[in-house]
């Protein structure tokens, strides 16, 4: 392509083009960010089938996966975390390298904890649970994902 010709345009036209291109890019990225944050998208991975169905069996099913699993930071922090976690998932999914129960890492556990407190702080602020060391999941482990057999068992057909 002859890039020279692009710069021969008048500055106004160039600006207009730039704004249009920027808008398209921003729209695409925002769209991707939100679409890839929907529970339906998370559940499109085979390894997520069980946790998805168990999440649907809880009273937290009104909240998307990302409400609890993305760090409670600004958008940059969220995007960086999402890209890293997404890449990790993509590799494991591509190589089918996952176990039936996917244990939670200590890092994700920390993120979950902060997100519990984000909504429930007023309930616990006057109790020892408000201390950073308190681990909500230790007792409330079935609040986000229910228990019992979920979808994705071994059915004989």
């Amino acid at each position, binding site marked *: 392509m002859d890039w020279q010709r692009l710069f021969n345009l008048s500055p106004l036209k160039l600006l207009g083009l730039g704004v249009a291109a920027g808008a398209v890019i921003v729209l695409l990225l925002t769209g991707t960010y939100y679409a890839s944050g929907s529970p339906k998208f998370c559940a*499109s991975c*085979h390894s997520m089938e069980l946790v998805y169905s168990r999440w649907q069996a809880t009273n937290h099913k009104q909240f998307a996966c990302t409400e609890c699993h993305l760090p409670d930071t600004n958008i940059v922090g969220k995007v960086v975390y999402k890209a890293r976690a997404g890449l990790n998932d*993509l590799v494991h999914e591509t190589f089918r390298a996952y176990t*039936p129960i996917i244990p939670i890492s200590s890092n994700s556990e920390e993120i979950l904890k902060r997100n519990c407190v984000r909504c429930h702080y007023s309930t616990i602020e006057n109790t020892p649970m408000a201390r950073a060391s308190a681990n909500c999941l230790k007792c409330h482990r079935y609040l986000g994902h229910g228990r019992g057999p979920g*979808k994705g*068992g071994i059915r004989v*057909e």
Partner: protein
Amino acid sequence: MDADREKEGLELNRNTKIITSLLGIAVLVFCVVMLRVFMIQPATTVKLAVIPEGEYDPAVWGKYYPLEYKSYQKNLEMAPSPTGFGGSEKYQKSTKEPEILINFKGMPFSKDYTEDRGHPYSLEDIKETKRIQPTAAGSCITCKTANLIDIYKEMGWGYAKVPIQELLAKVKYPIVCANCHDPKTMNLRVINPAFIEAMERRGIDVKKATREEMRSYVCGQCHAEYYFVPEGKRVVFPWDKGFLPEQTYAYYAGNPSGFEQDWIHPDSGAKMLKAQHPDYETWIGGVHGRSGVSCADCHMPFMMEKGQKYSSHWVTSPMKHSEPSCKQCHTQDATWLLDRVKTIQNNVWQLQRTAGQTVAKAHEVIGKASQAAKASKADLDKARVLIRKAQWYWDFVAAENSMGFHNPDQVLNTLGISIDLAHQAIATANRAAGTQY
């Protein structure tokens, strides 16, 4: 000038080629990843195969259910359990617990009593054991082979009194797929008539059992205490009064179908009972059993291979794969879990040894006391009843396969009672003869 331009053009051309090929590779990788992640996902169902009833060869079943078969083949591995107890290596238990030789004196378990191996070895091991003579009752074949299905269909309980050598000639397969699965539907089933009858007497129709119940029944059909009816050698599970050691003891106290004892101990002269692996009875009252955790939940957990979920058929100590077995419920890490199981089993092992040794001493003391000239026969008989009961309680734990894990609190209670009864037996014998052994 022209030459320079030509050179520049060539260089541009090469750069374009490199970029294009890199882009090509990126697109290809992207397509493969998208295809594998979103389009071609591993199957969530297993296709039902047509396997005729009467086909017992696990390799044939394995053609249609390869992951399950592959894990079943792991039963051939012989390895110790990570906790140090149980495991699937064959060794004489008396090398670790010499009291076995005294407590089972005068009966086959003092000659040969090995740690049990995996299901595929069931026939090999029954042929090898010194406990069974060629003329022994055919009832011993009940839990060792899938061919029982045809044998029972043909002869009913009549097979129980046929010499085992005759039956072994008809039998080809050990404990295989068909022992627990209906080949037409792959649904779980039980084939041991003794289990079906015992459940019937408890008011339970196993044909109406749920899948969750079946996930324990298929194991319970053999991993249970039983006796042979003296007339006809039919196998019976002593479950009419309940599953606890005191309830099964009470059942035997009623001399069911004329069954009084397994043997008379040569030293103490007591009428003894031999317990056989009451795994189901122990599990059912434990915290896991009471919470509805089935045998298969821990011993046959869901595994994943290349995204394909399957139920492990490597039936062994769950501690060999605590991740899929325990972590469905427990959040602690593998070391913590193993440490917990080891603690329970070490505690049980200690008391099991104490109980076994105290029982052994009681046999000796009653034997010596009964030699005394003026020994009270009534008191000696009381001591013999006490030792019969003491050994039953010890054996109910010692013959069980989990070193107490299936029901830790009940098992420790049982061993405590056993130790106390054995001491009572010793004291009673000494009182009978005025001795102080």
